[in-house]
């Protein structure tokens, strides 16, 4: 029985951790956040932080099918967990103003 001691503690902690991390997501879902939304960038280079230049895609399949255009546009599509009237509420940008490829609530696909 002694050899199960740490295992039992681990199981208890695991269930507690799942319950703890799940709670904010449940609350947020009620207010419409933390659902994935998919967008494509329709602006020009340097306009990545203008939320109106990101157009919502209706499905994940549209997101997958969308290929990044060539040219100077860096960020071209984004998965975001927050939405405001068909636009993302924010796009994670690096120091030079270009979208960073990943963030806590967003993932941006950059043109190579």
């Amino acid at each position, binding site marked *: 029985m002694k050899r*199960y*001691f*740490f295992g039992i503690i*681990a199981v208890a902690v695991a*269930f507690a*951790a799942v319950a703890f*991390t799940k709670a904010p997501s449940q609350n947020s879902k009620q207010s419409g956040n933390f659902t994935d939304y998919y967008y494509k960038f329709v602006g020009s280079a340097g306009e990545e932080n203008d939320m109106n230049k990101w157009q919502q895609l209706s499905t994940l399949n549209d997101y*997958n099918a969308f290929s990044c255009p060539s040219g100077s546009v860096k960020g071209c599509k984004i998965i975001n967990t927050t939405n405001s009237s068909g636009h993302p509420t924010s796009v994670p940008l690096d120091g030079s103003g270009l979208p960073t490829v*990943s963030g806590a609530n967003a993932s941006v696909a950059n043109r190579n």
Partner: protein
Amino acid sequence: MKRTVAIDIISAILLLLLLYTAISKFIEYSRFKEVLLISPLLKPFAGFIAWSLPLLELMIAVSLFIPALRIKGLYASLLLLIILTVYLTYMILFTPSLPCSCGGVLKDLTWPQHILFNLFFVVLSVIGIILARQRFIIRIKGEAPT
């Protein structure tokens, strides 16, 4: 005695990790599957991986819980963690823009952070296996007729 406690603690830590990620994947099943569908490498197997990976994690967690199966659980978790680390390395090299298909809070880690996280548990598994093997050898020597 100390060696046995160390093995139990290492097994419990790995059990905690695997159980947490498995339950998180089952709870967020549809999201997990969607992210797998984005991955160019895993897309053809997304449906299969979406339920088999958390199930495998659960099975390894059970084997880490049962003392008689603990050494097998340590080997299995080492193998799984190495496979996941190789996959993470592939993702960093070829598709760093995609989100992680990890369970729970682990999806908030960046790719390099996730690799370091995995490597820590790989090292932990290796230490657990070494300690378990040493204990096995000592036990055999102790039981051998003089």
